[in-house]
């Protein structure tokens, strides 16, 4: 059974159909990329999975759960983590605090035990810290641990956001343009990290990306979208040479 399943999902904003009867499924352990021109509805698909939008039709299931029945905050509890296209970090908190918020879905303490900071809360905090430190090591974030996000360079923020998503210990990681705004070198780093996230951590990755080098380098399958609908689905090579994709990007058929 596929990990994530979208079936006939349609989303309309008034007269605009942002996502048009879109169906695809992501298998466990693969890296699945969504490509397409601007306005194709790629980020909207992410926002649908995150439950920020309600689809007009269709169904979204994850790991046997009907996501459409869950609250936006409940999606993370099933093991779906995400990053944002324009970086949505907690600006006035340190890198460490940001990553620790990622551990929120594993919170076992309650209001009263936290106010008294009972030994159980302390133990949980040490465990959370331990988990977060492993992610800091994995993403080489050691120099920034106690720095405020507000003063960090763009490239580091991108990595912190991936780290925060990993801190939730997800089954599925949604990366919204992980390489946008990164230098060539940083993009190469990102590529190895995505590879390691899949291989070492066993996390399935669904990403939206424009950088075709990154897409063909790490992804197993690619979905090309235009105007909210599927254009082509297959291996990176198949999609890149698909006539409909060439037409969408270059205008006329060759």
């Amino acid at each position, binding site marked *: 059974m596929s990990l994530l399943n979208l079936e006939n999902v349609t989303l309309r904003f008034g007269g605009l159909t942002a996502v048009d009867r879109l169906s695809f499924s992501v298998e466990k352990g693969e890296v699945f990329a969504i490509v397409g021109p601007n306005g194709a509805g790629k980020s909207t698909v992410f926002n649908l999975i995150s439950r920020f939008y309600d689809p007009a039709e269709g169904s979204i299931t994850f790991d046997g759960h009907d996501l459409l029945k869950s609250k936006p905050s409940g999606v993370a509890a099933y093991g779906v983590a995400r990053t944002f296209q*324009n970086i*949505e970090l907690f600006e006035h908190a340190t890198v460490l605090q940001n990553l*620790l918020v990622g551990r929120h879905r594993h919170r076992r303490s309650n209001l009263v035990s*936290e106010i008294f*900071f009972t030994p159980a809360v302390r133990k949980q*905090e040490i465990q959370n810290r331990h988990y977060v430190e492993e992610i800091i090591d994995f993403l080489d974030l050691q120099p920034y641990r106690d720095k405020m996000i507000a003063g960090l360079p763009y490239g580091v923020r991108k990595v912190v956001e991936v780290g925060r998503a990993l801190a939730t210990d997800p089954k599925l990681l949604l990366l919204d343009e992980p390489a946008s705004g990164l230098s060539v070198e940083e993009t190469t780093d990102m590529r190895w990290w995505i590879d390691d996230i899949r291989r070492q951590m066993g996390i399935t990755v669904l990403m939206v990306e424009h950088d075709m080098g990154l897409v063909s380098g790490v992804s197993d399958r690619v979905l090309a979208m235009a105007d909210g609908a599927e254009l082509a689905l297959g291996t990176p090579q198949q999609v890149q040479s698909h006539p409909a994709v060439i037409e969408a990007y270059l205008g006329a058929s060759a």
Partner: protein
Amino acid sequence: MRIIFKTDYMQDIRPWKDGYQLSLYLILLALAVAAPFLLDAFYLGELNNVLIWAIAGMGLMILTGHTGQASLGHAAFLALGCYSNIILMESGVPFMLAFPIAGIITGLVGVLIAIPALRLHGVYLAIATLALSILADDIIVLTAEWTGGVGGKYAPPVNVFGYNIDRWGTPDAFYWLTLGVAVIVTLGYINLLRAPLGRSFIAVRDSEVSAQAMGVDVARTKAISFGLSCMVTGWAGALMGLFAGAFNNETFSIIISIELLMMIVIGGLGSIHGAFLGAMVIGFLPQFLSLSKEWIGALTGTTISLPGMEFGVFGMILIAFILFEPMGMYGRWLKIRTYFELFPFYRKDMFKRQKSYLKTERLR
């Protein structure tokens, strides 16, 4: 310059950085406990007032400084805490029980109000809570049967384990009571901030969408924050009523709400220190102004009377802070401390914000 080598996660989980910092706070606490022996009755009363304001400030700080929700309605919760404490005491509940219950009642009412009110954002929430402040006045008059209405009420004597605590009769004991409440609230606040709930407050403040994506239930977190905020404010209100001795529908006016909000902005949003620093400004400014009026009067041989001068000065201080030091007094203190710690390597732009980047289009 002190350098702290970290070898244990507990060093980050403990509320103090090292023994030096801990000893400073212990000395401060010792001085606070010894204050009745060091100060005369007038200044002890002033200090007591500052502590009560600081408790109220911490109440609002939870909501505004850490969860990012502005409230202009906290005078209503001060009133609720005050009246429920007094009414419980008058109906025979001992103070040691009535006081905590008054806070809990205020907190629960806060949650009930929060559920609809916190659907609003920013300035709209401020307007909605402003209405609360105005309503509180009318509700106190309408329920005159219990609250005494315009005629007001007098605080009954407080009895703790057979020991009488009275603002005028035993000011030392009343001061220690206030200090005790302040210390307990501060400790609880510190604990909250280093636990997951405190972090989720900050998450909601800085980015609701990503808080949601991390599994934080935004509506619920805001309601909890509002409830805790009201509970602490209720305790401050109860102490305020006992401290004042007499109060009526006009004691907890809209002005108090505004002063409270100004206080935490001047002190420094998002820090516990800010609540205390702001409370000192609020508490000592009127005394300072009347003293300086006397000095100037004595120097020039005239008498100065400027009605509303206090609020004018207060407003100017607030504007100055918003323009020149948005991080408040605590932010300024951090800069001064860093200057001395790094001397002579402090650079002028060290705390300058770097440009912030685009945020994901708001989904609501």
